[in-house]
């Protein structure tokens, strides 16, 4: 559940990110009642099994049933874990299209929500989700070669990140305007691993706080570029 809005005294409108159909918007008649086909399943970021009727004419789909599978449980006492969940909802709401299924992204979202259940894993969870999202949208920056001259990025050097060119920049192509932060070779390798299709490889990563900062800088810049603005939730996540 990405968004739950009260519509009338008894109904709600929900935006759901589904595994099979992508994002859908549907009217849940009686969705505000405790009893009935929805009970208390229609809460932000909860995972449900749903039945819905697709309207082929204009108008909203109709949600007829929702059974709660699990609620989102951010780490108790850590608001940033909750905000990480809101951020995930914001990204899916603004960057995915209706009826555009992304099962890989669905799985990544589930995994990220689990990682927001603990303070220690939340940041990595955010980064992995951002990178899978970029990959699924076909907007993943190039972490292998210099985005300007194409030369392979080798160990022992530092790079810049040039978001509009879509990737890292080697020292030879570096210009004043693009050097807000330098990305070390180790970070570039981490970015490759974190954005890889392998479900497991990235989990073995152990990043230093410095590397985490560099990685986050790159993903934030890439996400802002794709969205065309800064996501609302970023400022909540930063402190």
């Amino acid at each position, binding site marked *: 559940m990405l*968004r739950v809005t009260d519509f*009338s*005294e008894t109904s709600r*409108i929900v935006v759901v990110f589904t595994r099979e159909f992508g994002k859908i*918007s549907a009217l849940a008649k009686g969705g505000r009642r405790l009893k009935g086909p929805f009970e*208390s399943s229609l*809460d*932000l*970021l*909860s995972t449900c099994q749903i039945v819905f009727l697709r309207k082929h004419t*204009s108008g*909203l789909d109709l949600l007829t049933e929702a059974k*709660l599978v*699990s*609620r*989102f449980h951010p780490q*108790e*006492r850590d*608001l940033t874990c*909750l*905000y990480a*969940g*809101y951020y995930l*909802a*914001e990204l899916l*709401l603004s960057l995915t299209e209706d009826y555009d299924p992304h099962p890989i992204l669905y799985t990544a979202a589930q995994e990220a929500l689990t990682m927001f259940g603990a303070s220690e894993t939340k940041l990595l969870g955010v980064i992995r989700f951002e990178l899978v999202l970029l990959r699924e949208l076909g907007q993943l920056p190039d972490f292998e070669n210099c985005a300007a001259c194409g030369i392979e990025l080798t160990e022992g050097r530092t790079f810049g990140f040039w978001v509009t060119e879509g990737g890292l920049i080697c020292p030879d192509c570096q210009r004043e305007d693009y050097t807000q932060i330098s990305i070390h070779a180790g970070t570039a390798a981490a970015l490759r691993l974190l954005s890889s299709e392998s479900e497991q490889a990235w989990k073995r990563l152990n990043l230093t706080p410095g590397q985490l900062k560099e990685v986050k800088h790159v993903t934030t810049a890439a996400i802002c570029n794709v969205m065309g603005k800064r996501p*609302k*939730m970023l400022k*909540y996540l930063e402190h």
Partner: protein
Amino acid sequence: MARIEEPPRHPYGAAVGNLIERLAKLPGIGRKSAERLANHLLDCSEDEANSLAEAIRRVKTVVRPCSICFNLTEGETCSICSDPRRDKHSVCVVEQPRDLLALEAASIFNGVYHVLGGRLAPLNGVGPEDLNINALVKRVRHGGVTEILMATNPTLEGDGTALYISNLLANDPVKITRLARGIASGSVLEFANREMLADAIRGRQSF
């Protein structure tokens, strides 16, 4: 989402059409009921119709938030805040005046309230400055409050709001509690879902 359409022209003219439009916007009133109400208002005496208009105007000018708890009232402070029998040490925090009414209807809580006026919903642009949170913190720091009972809705955003407030008050000498949740009395464990059981176990209390 909702289709924008021209208001249907009414045979009696624009004034009646406008009235029906407005009545139909009220909760639980559909187009048919709105037409029935409009016909009734056309039939009844001018006095009767005007006193309805006046009653509506009056609640909008006379009713305002209580200066202490933000419950709705006609006076400076609401009937609960000005009741000497209520325990002023214990403050129950709710999202909306209607939540307060629900708790009052159960007549089980003898403390006083604080109405936030909503819940934190950063995705919808509702931040702490949009709610009566500062006033609550001031109320606590002013002294005399020993317990804050969080009765925000048991939703993700309601819980988030309660957490935000309890973080703000973490260093103040006030006990912060929240409503219990889990299995309803009279139901059976066998049919309780996983989440209800988990809540009940997390919120267990000593006998």
